[in-house]
């Protein structure tokens, strides 16, 4: 008799625990700050600073005006949106001496709030999307199938790299013109990691001209690690990932010149682009390269759509890395993103309905309140 041991499937993997723990830490930190803020607001309402100051100095009428102004200034400095270096809201009476001021305000140390109330809606959105992503990752890890729609541009990556290999030409990867503090550059480098791995497997040459020296270093590390993971560490050459210049059009001149001279078979444009987007893509078109672009700059998307074979529009660009990895955890984040999009869609629909009803029946207080709330939640 054959005995089989059924290995129990782990619902909570190390990755899931890490996600949940990180998210809980973030939520706890912010909740504590929020609680402190609420308690601070309650104590402020019970004992306003102006009343304390007035009560303490009731016998000195000439000091009271000065104290009230100073108290207002203290409150103004404590306001969340106010710059701490901003000038005082009212000038203090010139007659008030430093000694009188120090006597008037015994505790004038500005107290900064623990939570920026103006960003409450944004904070709640982040918590909501974070929760949606965490739950989706957990569900994906537990084996629940995730259906992701086909993205043509990403399906074409392997073919594009294969084409370059067959033609014996290089692949050009342009990671945008911004530095590593731009999320589009980071997304571009994650895409570079995938493309470089495929290029390493196919033994194709990949050229990465960069506009920032820090991006060059990060791109070198990314490509090196990709070649290593593809088992082709010997095929990596740091000289193919070069720094050109920080100047926008100087960079364009170099890249376009090398495109015309070397005629790469495949061009990837993944990152933050401005006016140079059309110059790159039209030059690539002229040399007959297959072109795949991705950016979150909505003003540049039409140029890429017009001149490139495939374009990753907005969110597709950020989903590219997860899509290509095929890992359940990464795909789970895409579902979390979709939950957020669905919530935004529902709120926008409600807002449109409320605005329409309000236009027909302007006296409806409930609808007015609903619309006000929606505007606050959506940041209007």
């Amino acid at each position: 008799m054959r005995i089989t041991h059924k290995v129990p499937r782990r619902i909570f993997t190390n990755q899931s625990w890490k996600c949940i723990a990180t998210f809980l830490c973030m939520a706890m930190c912010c909740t504590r700050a929020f609680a402190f803020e609420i308690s601070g607001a309650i104590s402020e309402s019970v004992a306003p600073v102006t009343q304390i100051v007035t009560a303490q100095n009731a016998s000195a009428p000439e000091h009271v005006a000065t104290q009230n102004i100073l108290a207002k200034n203290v409150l103004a400095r404590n306001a969340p949106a106010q710059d701490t270096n901003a000038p005082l809201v009212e000038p203090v009476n010139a007659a008030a001496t430093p000694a009188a001021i120090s006597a008037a305000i015994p505790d004038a140390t500005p107290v900064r709030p623990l939570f920026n109330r103006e960003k409450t809606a944004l904070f709640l959105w982040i918590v909501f999307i974070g929760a949606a992503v965490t739950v989706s990752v957990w569900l994906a890890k537990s084996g629940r199938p995730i259906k992701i729609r086909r993205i043509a541009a990403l399906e074409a990556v392997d073919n594009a790299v294969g084409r370059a290999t067959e033609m014996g030409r290089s692949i050009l990867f342009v990671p945008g013109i911004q530095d590593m503090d731009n999320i589009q550059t980071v997304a571009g480098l994650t895409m570079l990691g995938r493309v470089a791995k495929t290029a390493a497997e196919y033994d194709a040459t990949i050229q990465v001209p960069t506009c920032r020296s820090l991006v060059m270093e990060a791109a070198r590390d990314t490509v090196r690690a990709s070649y290593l993971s593809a088992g082709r560490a010997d095929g990596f050459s740091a000289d193919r990932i070069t720094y050109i210049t920080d100047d926008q059009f100087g960079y364009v001149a170099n890249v376009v010149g090398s495109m015309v001279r070397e005629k790469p078979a495949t061009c990837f444009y993944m990152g933050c682009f401005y006016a140079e987007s059309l110059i790159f893509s039209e030059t690539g078109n002229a040399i007959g390269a297959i072109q795949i672009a991705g950016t979150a700059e909505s003003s540049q998307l039409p140029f890429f759509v017009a001149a490139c074979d495939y374009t990753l529009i907005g969110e597709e660009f950020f989903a590219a890395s997860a899509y290509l990895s095929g890992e359940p955890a990464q795909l789970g984040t895409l579902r979390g993103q979709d939950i957020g999009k669905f919530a935004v869609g529902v709120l926008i629909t409600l807002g449109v309905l409320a605005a329409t009803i309000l236009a027909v029946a302007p006296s409806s207080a409930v609808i007015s309140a609903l619309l006000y709330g929606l505007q606050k939640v959506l940041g209007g």
Partner: protein
Amino acid sequence: MKRIIPMWIAIIGGFAMMLSSFIPLAESWGEVFANVFNVVAAIAFVLGAGSLAKQHLEKLSRRDAGWGYSIITLGSFIVTLLIGMFKIGIHPNPNFPQAAYSGSNNTEGSAWSWIYEYMITPLTSTMFALLAFFVASAAFRAFRAKNTEAILLLVTAFIVLLGRTFAGVVLTGWFPEWASGLRLENLSIYVMQVFNTAGNRAIMIGIALGVAATGLRILFGIDRSWLGGGDA
């Protein structure tokens, strides 16, 4: 270890930046990390300059195609670097007349300023001017009426193009008041304010959520492809 340390730096830095946005007491954390970024970027700039010099020197030594341009690049790089470092043609700051190098590179009439104004700016403008020709060729290709969608695009583009020029006013300005909505300049505004704005906002919402999800993927350490992928 080579992946764990960068990943944790990214996680800690990312959370610090996020918290600094919501908690005023943590505002300085964001500044600290921004300063660290600037210092690292400044160090990387030296590496970038080294890379630039290396690639062009190799090109020169191999006599590759276009090696003459490498001479110009290296020459310009060295000359500009020396002029900037030694502040050639710059008078000392009036507040510190004894200090020879106290003047700013941006001073009008300085050699560095001259290079910027009379060399870099015209060259940049020349490259930018090329865009007009590329726009024409891209528009020619995009506006070919091959199918229904392309025809719609073509018609919409002509409405917007004509509506934003005097041609639109000349062509449809005679429309009576009751049909003023059909004047090209008004149709152009309508297309931009309704259809274009709606589409643009849909893309912007998607981008915002994509940014949030990408940020969370990196902060949670789920996506490590920027480190070359694989396990830490």
